[in-house]
């Protein structure tokens, strides 16, 4: 045991001529910072493997749209299934867009017939065909185009947020303003706001709205 102790002491480095000081182990430069102490206290969270939130906050859209995306990813939106769980009295739990299935985040933004129609319009616009995941969050994650780079794809994900924002808006209009629902209108408005967001958030945008509508891919590639 003594040898072990001596061994340990001998292996330790002593800095001659310096006073003893503390090291803060939690930080790279070994100096205390309130920030690193705070994170220590908050505990280490398991990092999201799928990076969905990283993708979300990296989009170039309005914070409002990002917050909607955030609430969709967490399934914390006042959809009917969530309202019922929290004890809100409703007349029925059917989706207002299709009047067929129960309303939930995954239904409303993915598997609903109206939503499917909108996503198909989006595919046709690009000239591709893709399979849409029935979970809204997965749908967002896989919303990318193969021959675009990372930055261009994170801009392209703004279109996803534009579509869900329009779906959500129309769902609320149907409920509160008794409006009729029209997938073409939803998609058209999403195209507009996606373009407006890009125009305002990205300085290198030099294509017009009609360029965007007629050839979205070459517009994205120019960024």
């Amino acid at each position: 045991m003594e040898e072990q102790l001596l061994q340990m002491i001998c292996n330790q480095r002593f800095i001659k001529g310096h006073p003893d000081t503390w090291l803060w182990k939690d930080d790279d430069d070994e100096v205390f910072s309130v920030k690193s102490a705070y994170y220590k206290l908050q505990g280490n969270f398991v990092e999201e493997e799928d990076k969905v939130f990283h993708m979300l906050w990296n989009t170039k859209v309005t914070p409002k749209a990002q917050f909607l995306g955030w609430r969709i990813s967490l399934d914390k939106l006042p959809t009917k299934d969530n309202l019922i769980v929290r004890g809100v009295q409703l007349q029925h739990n059917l989706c207002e867009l299709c009047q067929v299935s129960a309303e939930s985040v995954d239904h409303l933004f993915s598997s609903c017939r109206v939503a499917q129609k909108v996503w198909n319009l989006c595919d046709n616009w690009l000239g591709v065909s893709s399979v849409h995941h029935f979970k809204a969050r997965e749908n967002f994650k896989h919303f990318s185009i193969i021959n675009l780079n990372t930055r261009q794809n994170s801009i392209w994900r703004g279109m996803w947020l534009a579509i869900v924002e329009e779906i959500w808006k129309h769902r609320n209009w149907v409920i509160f303003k008794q409006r009729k629902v029209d997938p073409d209108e939803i998609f058209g408005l999403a195209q507009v706001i996606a373009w407006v967001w890009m125009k305002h958030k990205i300085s290198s945008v030099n294509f017009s709205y009609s360029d965007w509508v007629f050839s979205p891919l070459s517009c994205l590639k120019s960024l």
Partner: protein
Amino acid sequence: MSGLKVNFSKTKVGGIGLNAILIKDFTRILNCNHMKIPFVYLGLPIGENPRRKIFWQPMVDKVRSRLSSWKGKLISMAGRACLIKSVLSALPLYYLSFFKLPKSVCNELIKIQRNFLWGWGSVDRKIAWVRWENICKLKKDGGLGIRDIGNFNIALLAKWKWRLGIEGHGLWKEVLESKYGSWRNLNETNISRYASRWWKDIHKVCGNSEHGAWFEKCIGWSVGEGEKVKLWEDTWVGDESLSTRFPRLYSISESKERYI
């Protein structure tokens, strides 16, 4: 010299543990006012009890007025989250870096933030959809990155212990060291009941107490001359102290307290 002169009519004289009559004499000689405890020094109230709710009331009121519901109605949730961050990082920081927030006030502040975020009015209650602790996670971990005010307060207070351990000089440090010895006093399980409330609070959040142990786990030693490190009791080699690692050798050591 800048020609700055002391304005005696704005100056106050106070004494700690001194006879009131003596201080009266001083004020007469210096032609200035008598300072009574509690008083405000550098913007911090001194001598009042920060463990009482009333001490924090001005700050709570200020936060509440900044985060009032009529303002929240006009902006989106994203804007409200942003406003919460800015109000919290500015307003109460100065207090929080010196005083420990009592649990009840902490909860009240969180309540104000939560209600504001989810858009509660004075009459209509709304659903808080996401738990507060999840809101406080980082954005990449699915939160909004709003600071948890309780833990932030503790992190700010822990800085005092760090400064006590590592900083060279300072009157504040000399005063504390003459009263309590050194930061080592914080690592005792029980500290004197004559210690000040502030010292007791520091002990509570980052000393050897139920919730304070996290601090020592983050501290390591860079050993130089070895004049400050305790051979057996400090964790200066490996991940634990030598007394924990070699308890039998420690038990027969004749100089358990010695420095390297």
